[in-house]
């Protein structure tokens, strides 16, 4: 079920209202059933895959806690391999096969592609990573194994974050299912406001920009440099608003029900370096890779070479996590390259800035750092969004070529949509800048009820009237 659907508009109030009137012992059952309904709205049969990974990791957790010595390591390996096998079959099978066919044809061998149709279950990478996180935490003894299958299933399947995160750690979320959540007006309305902000990002910004981006990236050769540049900048905002909008709705809807999910974004485009960007972007995944791959590989503890290798592997795998395509792998590796080059040139850059009198705190230097980070991020997004590496290369080499200001619109995105798109982006930036200093929500809460409700109602109507309601899937659902 999509958050931006009429079905969810009916589903969520019903689930929410029923949740608060049910006795404590039925609340978790209620959430599990609601989560099953939510997930089965996509492809019902795929709930069996989810059930399989839940069962494997639940049992693994129980045995891991009891086992000692090498058995523990074996149990962890079996659990991780089994969970990853599901991911491999559904997500990477054809990627591996196609590449094997490509390599073998270079060697003069003729292999044929199997004709099994495999559809990627929605959000597979998210819930498998959440499951993996659980068994790894149990293995390291940082989390007790969950005895209740009901609680563990609900933890993995909790519908607000089931299909696109945040990828929760058991220490943060699991215990919350054992707590009693009563109706709290302030908390419920705070959750609803967070959801509304998420809908603004998704419907007003992301889905409108998507009209432009999908036109241009479908056939980049048909568009001039200006259109390619606009589409690339729009994509940067589209993916941010799409994904952080989803996270806002997830965090907001969980808050309505009394749960606290981790924050997933922290104004990433305000970053002044790529490493800062990665501390602010998709925080739950970045920290997952940091804790379970980068640090175990040695991180920055064993010299520069090992550090760079850790970065390349972590970002390469992160790219592959996003999709079974070399474009994603390239995107990951490019980000690793940014970090490596950034680390190698830090002293040189500091010297250069010092020679022209730009201290670290000066506005000009901060602006340069911000602009450079944004441009580098946009360049990387080209690899992420392009359908093929050759398309990506075409876009990157034509961004500054043949600008035609009279030809900006695309088939789906008429010029009259441009002011709305730009104003919405400006509004997003303004709100994020203000939020850095004061809480807008708290400011509004101080208003008398009439102007406050008028403002809230105006915001809802604005999202309705300026949103794009094409039930566009969230980009990260495909991962």
């Amino acid at each position, binding site marked *: 079920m999509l958050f931006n659907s009429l079905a969810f508009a009916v589903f969520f109030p019903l689930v929410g209202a029923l949740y608060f009137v049910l006795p404590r012992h039925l609340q978790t059952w209620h959430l599990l059933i609601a989560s099953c309904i939510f997930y089965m709205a996509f492809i019902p049969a795929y709930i069996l895959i989810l059930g399989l990974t839940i069962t494997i990791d639940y049992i693994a957790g129980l045995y891991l806690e009891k086992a000692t010595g090498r058995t523990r390591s074996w149990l962890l390996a079996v659990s991780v391999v089994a969970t990853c096998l599901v991911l491999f079959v559904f997500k990477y099978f054809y990627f591996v096969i196609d590449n094997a066919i490509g390599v073998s044809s270079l060697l003069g061998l003729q292999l044929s592609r199997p004709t099994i149709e495999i559809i990627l279950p929605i959000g597979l990478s998210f819930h498998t990573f959440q499951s993996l996180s659980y068994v790894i935490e149990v293995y390291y003894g940082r989390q007790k194994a969950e005895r209740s299958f009901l609680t563990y299933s609900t933890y993995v399947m909790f519908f607000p974050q089931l299909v696109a995160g945040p990828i929760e750690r058991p220490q943060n979320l699991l215990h919350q299912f054992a707590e009693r959540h009563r109706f709290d007006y302030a908390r419920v309305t705070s959750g609803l406001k967070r959801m509304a902000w998420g809908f603004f990002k998704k419907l007003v910004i992301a889905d409108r920009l998507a009209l432009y981006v999908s036109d241009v990236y479908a056939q980049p050769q048909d568009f001039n440099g200006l259109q390619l540049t606009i589409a690339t900048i729009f994509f940067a905002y589209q993916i941010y608003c799409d994904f952080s909008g989803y996270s806002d709705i997830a965090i907001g809807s969980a808050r309505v029900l009394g749960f606290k999910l981790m924050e997933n974004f922290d104004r990433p485009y305000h970053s002044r370096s790529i490493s800062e960007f990665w501390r602010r972007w998709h925080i739950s995944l970045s920290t997952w890779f940091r804790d379970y791959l980068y640090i175990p590989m040695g991180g920055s503890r064993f010299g520069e070479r090992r550090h760079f290798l850790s970065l390349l592997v972590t970002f390469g795998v992160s790219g592959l996590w996003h999709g079974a395509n070399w474009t994603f792998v390239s995107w990951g590796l490019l980000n690793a390259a940014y970090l490596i080059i950034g680390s190698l040139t830090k002293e040189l850059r500091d010297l250069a800035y010092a020679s022209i009198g730009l201290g670290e705190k000066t506005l000009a230097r901060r602006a340069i750092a911000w602009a450079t980070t944004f441009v580098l991020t946009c360049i990387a997004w080209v690899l992420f969004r392009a359908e093929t590496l050759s398309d990506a290369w075409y876009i990157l080499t034509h961004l500054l070529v043949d600008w035609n200001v009279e030809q900006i619109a695309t088939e*789906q995105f008429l010029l009259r949509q441009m002011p709305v798109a730009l104003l919405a982006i400006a509004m997003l930036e303004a709100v994020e800048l203000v939020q850095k200093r004061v809480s807008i929500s708290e400011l509004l809460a101080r208003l008398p009820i009439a102007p406050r409700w008028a403002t809230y*109602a105006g915001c809802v109507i604005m999202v*309705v009237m300026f949103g794009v309601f094409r039930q566009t899937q969230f980009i990260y659902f495909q991962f």
Partner: protein
Amino acid sequence: MISGLGRIAAFAALVLVLAVLLHAVIDAGLRHIDTSSFGVWNRIYDGTIDADVVVSGSSRALTHYDPRIIANYTGLRAYNIGLNGSQTDMQVARLATYLRHNKAPLLLIHNLDAFSFQTTHGGVYDPGQYMPYLREPAIYDALLRSDPDAWRSKFVPLYGYAVQDLRFTWISGVASALGWKPAEDHFQGFKPRFASWTEDFARLKASNPNGVTFAIEPDGVTAMEALLRLCSAHGVKVILVYSPEYEEMQRLTLNRREIFGAFEKLGRDFGAAVWDYSNSPISAHKQYFYNSQHLNAEGAELFSRDIASRIVSDSFTGLLAEAAGRDRIGREMERIRTQ
């Protein structure tokens, strides 16, 4: 908890009331526009056209026939109800709406396209234009046939404007309610395009180097038959006209002969004349087109003169006499009323 839920419900009710009010304001605003494309819709809906010659069809009808020229040549009142981006099913709905609210014309010129035997798939073009007229049975039924969820636009406040429409038609409605009007770009329903040849056709050719085939759908044939039956029921004479199409495009259309065979059959079955302007000298000159299908204003003027003189000179003297007779009777009745 009860009071908290009550407050949330009260807020939801407030939003709903605002949505209903805004929807009403948008509808009323759009219905008050008397210029541009909404001006044409509103004249059709208000029954203030009452033309003797009506031109219907798609964007080709809209941009090819200047009713002022037809009126000058024939002495008959003419009006163009061509509908941009429409397939035959929506053109029939617009004509049915016209006939419901206006006097039946003596003559309908229905402009044909290579895609005349196709109906709407995947949602109508520019759905916002239909929203204030969903109470019109022909329009609502046609929308419902092409999209079973069209009922939502009629019954869920703001759904049609917010969900179906990407063109911010609602802003025009609100602005009109505040006194704004769009600039007039339609003349008796005709919309001239002051444009020169674009690269559209080159792109089409490049993406279809082996030619193009236009499907003849059973539903499309039914829609064309419905149009002719509708005219027959209202006693309207029909000329099916294939207006000039850029000649290179004609060669690119692989099943052109089959399509024209179907047009001829329709003409025979329903007693409608079929006038084909494929070989018109206009078709050979890019300067009269802005793409392979559409004449520019210069081409439209030439073509309108051509067809108007043919209406006069062809077998329509009886029609003209009938119109003149009707005018005489009308004048006589007016004289009696004023005495």
